[in-house]
C-alpha cells in the first residue's frame, strides 16, 4: 500500500499537537542550516536510494516543511521518515537543503515524544541501543548469530561456531574480544556514561522504550557507583 498523505490520516490528532511537534523541530539549532526552502525540483529524489524502494520522497518532505504544512509534516514524521537510509546523497540539493538532516531532526522529535510509529520502526532495535550505550561499541562479534541474520546464509553460523578461536586468531591484541568490537577501558565507559547523563540522551531512550531504559539505568548506575559517582542517577 502506498503512503497515505490525505488529511484524514491522523485526523484524530489535534492540529495544536501537530503544530507543537513541528515547532519543536523548527527550534532545533540545525533547522536553519538544513532547510532554506525548496525549489521542488526533485534532484534529491533522483539521488535517493530509499525513493527507489519505498513510496518515499525527500522532495515531499522538504516541500512539506518548507511550506509549513503542519498536517502533512505530522503524517511524514510518522509514516515516512524511517524509510530514509541516511546516506545524504540528497545533500546535492541546489537549494542547499539537506533533506536527510531534516529527516534526522524530525526523527529526533518523533523519538523524544514517544510517537508509536517511532516505537514500531525501532522494534527489534533495542538490543543495538543497549550494546552501544552500555559498552561503547555498537557492533560486536557475538551479534553474528544465524537467527539474527538468516538471510546472510550458513556463513554466519560458521563464524559463530568458530567465534572464540577466530577472535584469538587476530594479530592485534585489542581485538580478542567477542562482546565488544575491541577492548574498551573501564574509565572510557564511565566517561561515556557521564556523557549520556549530562546530555539528556537517556530521556530519549525512556520515551521510546521504558524497559530498555530501566535495564540501562541499572547497569550504568551500578558501574558509576563503583567508580565513585554515587551521586549520579538517571531519574
Amino acid at each position: 500500500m502506498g503512503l497515505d498523505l490525505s488529511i484524514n490520516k491522523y485526523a484524530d490528532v489535534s492540529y495544536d499537537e501537530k503544530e507543537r511537534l513541528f515547532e519543536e523541530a523548527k527550534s532545533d539549532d540545525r533547522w536553519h542550516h538544513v532547510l532554506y526552502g525548496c525549489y521542488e525540483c526533485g534532484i534529491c529524489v533522483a539521488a535517493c536510494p530509499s525513493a527507489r524502494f519505498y513510496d518515499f520522497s525527500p522532495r515531499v518532505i522538504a516541500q512539506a516543511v518548507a511550506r509549513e504544512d503542519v498536517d502533512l509534516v505530522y503524517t511524514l514524521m510518522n509514516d515516512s521518515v524511517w524509510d530514509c537510509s541516511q546516506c545524504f546523497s540528497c545533500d546535492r540539493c541546489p537549494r542547499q537543503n539537506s533533506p536527510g538532516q531534516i529527516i534526522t531532526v524530525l526523527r529526533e522529535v518523533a523519538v523524544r515524544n514517544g510517537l508509536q510509529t517511532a516505537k514500531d520502526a525501532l522494534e527489534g532495535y533495542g538490543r543495538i541501543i543497549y550494546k552501544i550505550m552500555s559498552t561503547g561499541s555498537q557492533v560486536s562479534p557475538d551479534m553474528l548469530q544465524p537467527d539474527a541474520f538468516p538471510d546472510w546464509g550458513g556463513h554466519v553460523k560458521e563464524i559463530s561456531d568458530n567465534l572464540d578461536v577466530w577472535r584469538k586468531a587476530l594479530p592485534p591484541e585489542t581485538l580478542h574480544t567477542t562482546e565488544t568490537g575491541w577492548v574498551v577501558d573501564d574509565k572510557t565507559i564511565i566517561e561515556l556514561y557521564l556523557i549520556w547523563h549530562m546530555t539528556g540522551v537517556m530521556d530519549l531512550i525512556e520515551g521510546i522504550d521504558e524497559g530498555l531504559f530501566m535495564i540501562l539505568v541499572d547497569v550504568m548506575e551500578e558501574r558509576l557507583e563503583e567508580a565513585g559517582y554515587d551521586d549520579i542517577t538517571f531519574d
Partner: protein
Amino acid sequence: MIHLPVLKAADRKFQANPDNAPTEDIREELFQLEKEGELEVIRVPEPYMEVKTKFGRIKKIPVEKTWHHKSCGQCGHIPGYSTSIFWLNRAFGLDYYDPTDQTSCTAWNYYASATSNPEAQAAVAVRNFAAAHEVGYFPLIHCGTSFGHYKEVRHALVHQPELRRKVRKVMEKLGKKLVLPEEVVHYSEWVLAMKDRIAERQVVDMSNITATVHPACHYHKLIEEDAIYDSEIYGAQRTAIITGTLQALGVNVGDYSTWFDCCGFGFRHILVSRDFSRSFSVQRKIEVMMEEVNPDIVVTHDTGCVTTLDQSQFAGKAHDKKVGLPVISDSQLAAMAMGAHPYKVLQMHWHNTDNTKFMQKLGMDTDKLWAEFELETDKIKRGEKEFLTWEDAEK
C-alpha cells in the same frame, strides 16, 4: 533498468583553484577560535603528506604518530579490514597507537534510531579526540561514517557557540579539554597518500585484475569539499579515493553507471529492515557492476559498504540474481599486494561471498594458505598458544 554507456573524456581536466572555493576553509576558523581561547587544535604531526581536496585545497595526511580510531563494524564483523591497516603501518615501521581508550563514534546508532542528540554526539567525538591528544598521537579514522560524522561535528562546533559551551562543560566534568583536529583524516586517505610507497613494496602482480570501486556516501557526500580529488583520476569529477590506490597497484578499474548510488546499508535497515538493503545492494550495485564491467572484485573503504555489498549477495543468489563478486577494502587489497597472509592478516574467511577464485587468479594457493591458518587455530584450540601474534602472521 536502462544502462547508459559510460563515456569518458580522457583529455579533459579541471584544475580547482582554492581561491574560488564556494565554502570557507574551516581550518582557518579553527585556528581563529584557538586564538580566542575557545578550543585547542590538534596539529597534524610531521612528517605529513599533502593531497588535494575537491576545491583544490591542500589537506595534510600524517605519515605516523596516528591514533587508530577503530570501527565497531570492521573490528566486529570484518576484522581483517582493521588488521590490514595495522599491518601496513607495521610493514613500514611506522609509529602508531591502537587505543583501548576509545568508543565508537555512535553515529551508526544515531543515523539508525535518532536516540541521541547533537550535544551527545559532539561530546563523544571530542572525548575520543582528547584521548588521542593526551597520548600525543593524531586521530586516524577507520570508519567512513565516523569520518563524515566527525566532520559534521567539527563543522557544528566551529559554527555554534552554544554547542561549544555545552560540550566544553561536559569535557570539564571529564577532566578534558575541547580539542578538535586540524584535519579529519580517513584511513583510506592515508592509504592513497602512501600508494607509491605501497607500490614500491608490491610483491603480488595485480595487472590481470579488474575491480569496481564503491566510494562511501559518508566519505564524499558529507562535508563534500573535504574529500580527495585528483585531476588525473576521473578528471577530478569524482573522488580519487580507492581508485588512485588501485591504479598505483596496477589494477584495472572498471567504471559503472551507478557509482554514485549508496550501497543500501541504511543504518537501521541493515539491522532490522534488510529487505531494502539486500534489494538495493544487489540490483543497483552488484548486478550493474556485473553487467557493465564483470569485475573480479569490488573494492570499497567503509564498514557498512563492505558488509552490505558482500552479505546481500547470499539472498541475491537464492533469487537467481547476477551475483558472486567478492568485496574487500582498499587496506586489505594494499596489504595483499605487499604480500600479507590472506587468512592470518587479511582474515578473508570473515567475508561471505566466495573470494578464493579471486585470490587464485592472483596466483595464491588458497588451500595451502588456509591450512597454514588452521595450523595456528589448531594450536589455539589445543591450548598450545593463547593468540595468533604478529610474528605468527609473518611466518
